[in-house]
């Protein structure tokens, strides 16, 4: 016999109370001399003995009733032949956990893995009795409890299952055991069972972490755990990436995107067609002759932009087995035109090189959508800078506080600033300006100009500090010798601010060459070297135009162009306080979610905590305002739908106490085998109540008849004998 609430057995100590009361009562015998002993004759003496016996019987009945009550409250459970005589009922507390990650949508034929999971859930439900406790949870990145510790009702259970749909999320397996253990702990059941129905993806289960194994073992201590695999084939094609590679995100320009298609299956995929859509219109199609099993192929998709504004771009393949990861989405913020204003304090040499690098044309001719204007310092526009997207300051000695304030506002509104060092730069003046402003304009405090040449007088080459940064990614395609040709002879020493990070540095762990930090919705890049050839030969190599063009492309982008994953938070940031208190997010399924706007670090941010769908969300400052699309993709980590074999799964689960039920027959057998514990608390409770009633009746019969005359005597002044 085991107990569901064994701590309550401490209540058995309460048995001491009636016994103690009895003993105290006996100890408190009062004595008196008595003359009329002839009237306390034999019959009364016999009666007194009977009373003592009845008292003892009543005491025994009270003690037994109390003991039975304590046992009932402790919820006893019995197993085995020894307790077969004890009336009881088989009661189960069942947690059914269905893997709701998007890999469960994979289908080999007509039915998906999720459909199969639902069938198994119904099968388990059919083996429950009305009144059994049941929890139904849909697992994913976050776990949704559909039924929580509810008394099993077939109709309610069926209704709850009707609403179950797989999610586009990735399964967070690490958190599953603890979540299930919490649900198990909530159950006040004698026989606790957990049924985990999952496709047992190889990537999740092949190499389980130590904490996961430990929590599985812990879960096994709390309940009997069954793992029910609903595996299928590994065949799946997915578009795992869609990246902007080159070109300009402006009107009448063409951008090149790179789509990556992965074949997660075990057989080669041939003639894979990738379609590129912009705003739902198919604009490019590519065909990959063959993708080997487990391999990926990339294709370039050329996207022309005919007008300005945010553009929804998607790359899509056709794969019937799992549709949710067939599409990868991205948003491009296409500008009407891109204007760069360059202030040059070096006398014109640097600005010329910068303009040449930005236009990347031998003639330096501009087109309508892209203008680069150079101005010799100290000329500075009196009016607004709104006409420009990027401002470049090269070798500018110093700026006034007013100019600094204007540039700060310019950046925070979502524009960008590129700063180059040079001979004319007065570091002290720039540093003083930074100290005067609460938010520094530049990402570093400036120091002395230093010589970076080695003993032989050769400058140090360049090395990307962040290889995955949008600026350094194109440099990776350059031949190594070409990159190493870029030599830096001098640079200005810097002390980076807390919010900045180096993008490029001198080779060999040298000091940073390019630093970046964010200001509001804009960015500031700081080169610790000059733009002209005085301090380096960068402008003479392909590195310089590539860097400059990437900088402008990167800086003229928007933060919401970066695609998010399902489960990520979506943000909408404002520089100025919006009129409406709530921002609006429209989901891909055209639902509207209002989100309050909160002030955060000198800007206003609306935060949607979770994106639950894959597709294009639209963020609006208000219901009527034009929306800004945000691409939300599924995490391609879940696209590897290959499942563990039964043998491998058994090895993985070895020592965890978790049993595998491969099909309904095995599941049925295990349920019958495990559900042998019977709950007898009702029997004990009824027995205790019967004893209490019997004791009350007996006490009433013994005491009531005898005490009634005493009540009449209670009016006597000698109510209490002394």
């Amino acid at each position, binding site marked *: 016999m085991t107990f569901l609430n064994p701590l309550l057995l401490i209540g058995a100590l309460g048995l001491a109370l009636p016994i103690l009361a009895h003993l105290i009562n006996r100890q408190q015998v009062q004595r008196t001399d008595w003359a009329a*002993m002839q009237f306390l004759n034999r019959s009364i003496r016999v009666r007194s003995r009977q009373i003592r016996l009845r008292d003892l019987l009543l005491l025994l009945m009270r003690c037994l009733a109390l003991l039975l009550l304590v046992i009932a409250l402790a919820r006893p459970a019995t197993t085995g032949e020894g307790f077969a005589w004890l009336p009881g009922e088989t009661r189960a507390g069942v947690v059914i956990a269905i893997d709701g990650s998007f890999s469960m949508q994979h289908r080999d034929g007509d039915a998906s893995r999720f459909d199969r999971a639902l069938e198994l859930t119904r099968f388990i439900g059919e083996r429950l009795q009305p009144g059994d406790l049941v929890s139904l949870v849909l697992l994913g990145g976050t776990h949704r409890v559909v039924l929580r510790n509810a008394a099993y009702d077939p109709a309610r259970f069926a209704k709850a299952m009707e609403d179950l749909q797989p999610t586009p999320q990735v399964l967070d397996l690490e958190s599953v055991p603890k979540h299930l253990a919490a649900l198990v702990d909530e159950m006040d059941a004698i026989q606790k069972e957990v049924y985990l129905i999952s496709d047992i993806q190889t990537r999740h289960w092949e190499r389980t972490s130590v904490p996961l194994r430990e929590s599985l073992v812990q879960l096994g201590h709390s309940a009997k755990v069954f793992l029910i695999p609903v595996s299928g084939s590994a065949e799946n094609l997915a578009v795992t990436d869609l990246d902007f590679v080159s070109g300009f995100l402006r009107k009448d320009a063409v951008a090149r995107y790179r789509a990556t298609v992965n074949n997660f299956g075990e057989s080669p995929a041939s003639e894979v067609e990738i379609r590129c859509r912009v705003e739902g219109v198919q604009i490019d199609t590519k065909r990959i002759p063959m993708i080997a099993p487990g391999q990926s192929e990339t294709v370039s998709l050329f996207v022309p932009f005919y007008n300005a504004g945010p553009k929804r771009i998607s790359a899509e393949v056709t794969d019937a087995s799992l549709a949710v990861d067939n599409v990868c989405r991205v948003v491009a913020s296409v500008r009407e035109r891109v204007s760069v204003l360059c202030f040059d304090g070096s006398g014109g040499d640097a600005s010329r090189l910068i303009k040449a690098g930005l236009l990347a044309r031998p003639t330096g001719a501009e087109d309508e959508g892209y203008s680069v204007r150079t101005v010799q310092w100290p000329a500075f526009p009196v009016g607004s800078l709104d006409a420009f997207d990027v401002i470049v300051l090269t070798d500018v000695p110093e700026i006034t506080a007013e100019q600094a304030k204007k540039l700060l506002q310019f950046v925070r509104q979502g524009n960008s600033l590129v700063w180059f060092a040079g001979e004319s730069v007065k570091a002290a003046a720039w540093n003083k300006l930074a100290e005067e402003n609460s938010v520094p304009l530049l990402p570093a405090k400036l120091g002395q100009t230093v010589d970076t040449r080695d003993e032989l007088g050769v400058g140090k080459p360049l090395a990307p500090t962040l290889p995955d940064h949008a600026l350094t990614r194109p440099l990776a395609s350059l031949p190594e010798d070409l990159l190493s040709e870029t030599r830096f002879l001098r640079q200005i020493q810097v002390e980076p601010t807390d919010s900045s990070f180096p993008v490029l540095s001198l080779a060999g762990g040298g000091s940073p060459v390019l630093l970046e930090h964010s200001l509001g919705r804009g960015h500031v890049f700081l080169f610790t070297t000059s733009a002209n050839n005085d301090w380096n030969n960068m402008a003479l190599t392909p590195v310089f135009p590539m860097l400059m063009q990437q900088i402008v492309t990167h800086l003229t982008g928007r933060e919401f162009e970066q695609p998010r994953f399902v489960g990520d938070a979506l943000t909408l940031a404002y520089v100025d306080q919006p009129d409406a208190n709530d921002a609006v997010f429209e989901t891909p399924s055209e639902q509207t979610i209002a989100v309050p706007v909160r002030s955060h670090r000198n800007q206003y941010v609306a935060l949607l905590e979770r994106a639950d769908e894959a597709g294009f969300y639209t963020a609006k400052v208000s219901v009527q305002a034009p929306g800004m699309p945000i691409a939300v993709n599924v995490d391609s980590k879940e696209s590897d739908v290959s499942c563990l074999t039964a043998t491998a799964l058994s090895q993985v689960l070895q020592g965890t106490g978790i049993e595998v039920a491969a099909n309904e027959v095995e599941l049925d057998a295990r349920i019958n085998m495990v559900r042998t514990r019977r709950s007898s608390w009702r029997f004990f409770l009824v027995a205790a109540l019967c004893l209490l009633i019997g004791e009350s009746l007996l006490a009433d019969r013994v005491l009531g008849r005898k005490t009634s005359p005493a009540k009449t005597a209670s009016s006597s002044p000698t109510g209490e004998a002394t």
Partner: protein
Amino acid sequence: MSEHLNRVHYLKPEMLHQLDDLEMIAREVVEGLRVGSHRSPLRGFSTEFSHHRQYAPGDAIRDIDWRVYGRTSRYYTKLYEAETNYDCTILIDGSASMTYGSATVSKLEYAKYLAASLAYIVLKQRDSVGLSVFDSEVRAYLPPRSSMNLLVQLDRLLHEIKSEPRTTIAKQLHDIALMMKRRSVVVVISDFFADVNDIMSGLDHLRHDGHNVIVLHTLDPYELSFPFKGTWQFDGLEQEEPLTTQGERIREDYLRQFNRYREAFQTACGGSGIEYALVETSRPLDGVLSEFFHQREAMLSGSAIGGRT
């Protein structure tokens, strides 16, 4: 009660004053030997003929004047009247059972007060008072005398009583009856916790000897109501086996047996021409005496009126 008794403490002047008003012996007009202003309480036992009256049921058969019957064919009973100085003998039960008292005054103490008070009243009437104390045997016997000094002897004797258990009462009453030389009023103060037949055997002996017997059945209020609650051990005062029990549970049985005994005793006294009065020791002594004398006066008056008709 106890406060009252302490205040009285034998023959306090306040109580004597109250008792002066009671007119205890207003029964028949028999003056005492010394004073002769009171009617003797021994009416019916005098040898001096007074007059006849027609027989009424209840009159003693031996008092029927058969010669008058022979002449008139009617029953007449002879009434005697004697101006006599009567004797009163007070018998006090000094057995161990009398030492019980639920409050500060035991039955024996109460009996002492009662006896002293009665003696004083009788002596004040210039009648004679005798005293006897008994338990398992007769412990003391003072023949009747009319001196107030007797009260001092009474007081000393009462103080000297050492309670002893007794099993019977008849033998002691028989012995006392043999000691008494003259018919008198015999007042027996006792709890009479003995077999009714045994008690009546002794009392009848006194009665048959021509004594006018008055029984003052002295009981503690707890013995009358048995108010015990909870677990009690009752230790018998007369060497009975102790009993431990719960008072409230046996109360009904106790009271049933006790009341049966009392009714039997009271009925037996009535049947033997013995006056019976219940004295509850919780009651004030003067109240008890006052009530007793009023009842007695009323009863005697009724008999006299009946006698004249």
